[in-house]
């Protein structure tokens, strides 16, 4: 595998650091949780069944929530007879909203979407999905429903606008940027991940976070004879000391973990190759046939597309045995 220059990795680190700018603006989230991956289903409220176009928007939003949660937040789906419900109604618990949510996790939730044509002080509510060709000034019902499902998940409002959050205080009207956003924003996902953990060990950590990582590192042998091979293994996880304790220690799979070496006593690391994902979550391995004695480490550069900090492992010296002397403990050939 072609070695990668340290300069490139330093640049990657800098790019990773740039992501930190979003940190600390994580969407607020309630402490009252659903269970991890809990399937929460809703029905249409009997006397307030949404019209077809609104049902499609709501079910689309549930799918958007499931797809973009990137965490073990609740999974949503529509099923007749469920305890939770969604209503299409002129009257909501508040007079000042186009849609509304009430949650009683981990039991039930209620969501209301206001009727198309309802009149507020400022004017008439128009849902874009009502039209074949949506006019400017309409609200996207699917985005509004996703916003309400965000409340169902426990998310509160934030001053961070789209695309970083769909929980922006004010619903946006066409054609403002983000009026029809289909995914939770990075800072929404950050909140869900800190509350519910990553969906899988391979799930990308939100760029709205900036989590430390740690790398464990081991070698199958610390000395070898010429022609022999050594297998290095590494374990990448979220650092134990991160503030978001629910994520602390969680393994990270599918990342780029590099095996690096330097001459004994040297200061410059050279990448020998990328370690391959092993079977266990967060594990990586690479077998090499060293051509000399080196110090080795595993290295994880802060990725540009994730809210993770880089880390390097402890250093292991692997020595080439010279001459015909008997192989000592840990030798491979």
């Amino acid at each position: 595998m072609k070695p990668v220059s340290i300069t490139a990795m330093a640049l990657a680190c800098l790019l990773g650091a740039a992501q930190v700018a979003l940190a600390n603006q994580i969407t607020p989230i309630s402490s009252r949780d659903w269970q991890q991956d809990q399937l929460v289903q809703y029905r249409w409220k009997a006397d307030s069944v949404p019209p077809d176009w609104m049902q499609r928007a709501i079910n689309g939003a549930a799918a958007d929530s499931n797809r973009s949660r990137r965490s073990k937040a609740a999974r949503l789906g529509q099923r007749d007879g469920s305890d939770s419900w969604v209503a299409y109604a002129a009257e909501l618990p508040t007079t000042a909203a186009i849609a509304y949510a009430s949650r009683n996790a981990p039991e039930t939730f209620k969501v209301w979407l206001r009727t198309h044509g309802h009149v507020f002080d400022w004017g008439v509510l128009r849902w874009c999905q009502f039209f074949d060709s949506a006019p400017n000034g309409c609200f996207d019902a699917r985005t509004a429903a996703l916003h309400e499902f965000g409340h169902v998940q426990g998310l509160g409002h934030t001053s961070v606008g789209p695309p970083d959050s769909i929980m922006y205080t004010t619903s946006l009207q066409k054609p403002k940027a983000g009026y029809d956003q289909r995914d939770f924003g990075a800072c929404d996902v950050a909140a869900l991940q800190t509350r519910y953990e990553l969906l899988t060990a391979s799930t990308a950590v939100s760029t709205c976070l900036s989590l430390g990582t740690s790398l464990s590192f081991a070698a199958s042998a610390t000395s070898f004879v010429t022609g022999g091979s050594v297998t290095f293994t590494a374990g990448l996880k979220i650092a134990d000391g991160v503030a978001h304790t629910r994520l602390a220690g969680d393994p990270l799979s599918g990342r780029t973990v590099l095996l690096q070496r330097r001459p004994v006593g040297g200061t410059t690391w050279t990448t020998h190759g990328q370690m391959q994902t092993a079977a266990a979550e967060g594990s990586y391995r690479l077998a090499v046939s060293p051509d000399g004695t080196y110090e080795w480490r595993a290295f994880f550069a802060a990725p540009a597309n994730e809210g993770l900090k880089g880390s390097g492992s402890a250093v292991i010296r692997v020595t080439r045995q010279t001459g015909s002397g008997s192989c000592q403990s840990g030798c491979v050939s």
Partner: protein
Amino acid sequence: MRSRAPKEHHIPRPGTRPPAILLARRLGPTTVLLLMAAVAFAVSPLPSGAGPAVTPADCLVVASPSGEEHGFAGTSMTVEAVLSRRGEQIGRRLEVRTQRGTSISVALASDSFVGEPRGGRVLYAQRSPTGGSEIRALSLDSGCNARLMELQDVVRSVLESPADGSLFVHTVVGAERHDGGVTRINPAAGSAEQVVPPFVPAADFGRVYATQLAWAADGQTLAVQSCGAESCVTRLLAPDGNLLTYDTPHGAYVGLTDDTLIAFAADHGRPAELLAIDRRTGIARVVADEVFEAELSTAGPPSLLIETPAGRHEVLP
């Protein structure tokens, strides 16, 4: 009942109004047509789609004496949205069953208002054919439906004074539907004056979604709550005309005692914190966390009946 001590929720920043105390500008009633005096309590034809015609002799829709707070026994009233087959709200329908057993159905525009039954009648308002609004009264006794007055602006809500029968009317103005303030109209005296100036939202408040009028328990102080998408501003009009503005962030209005304004926290859905805002200082404290519904009772010492995930219970404001 919750036992933990209330916590401080918000302290106004030094140098800011905590709440601002503003004198209501007693403006001339520029938006009120003086039609009002002439048509007050007069009979007028029912709007299209309204209930059965009534004879003028029956149709004196005056409020019953004070103490008749909620209408007559045996009556009922519902307001429902009227939807097209595609689910568009194309109007509203006011259904009333009178004490005499008559069922009345009144077709309303979507941009309309229906008040709570009071004094044996229901006040409602809707757009008039001239582009303004008309305020009407429907008797829960006879079913009589009379036009009280017509205004040039769009009437969003009406509240009757329990003290003298004056109507406090909130309007929006012009094509942009800016807040038009609250005008007090005294049909008996033939007078009209703006008692609460138009609400001018701060830049970060956004547009006004809804405005609610409500009386304090004493029936003397009028609460005018203007709500945007994120939070509300509540203005209290004292009997002497003083206007207090409470812009401590809060949400939906619950009630008003002599000392406190009860409201939900700025609305992020429910459950939400329930706040008691000191009427003198504007400082809010949390009365209860995670409240779904709240109702203020002022029949005796003020108390709050709240619904939380733990069930329904009573707390003191």
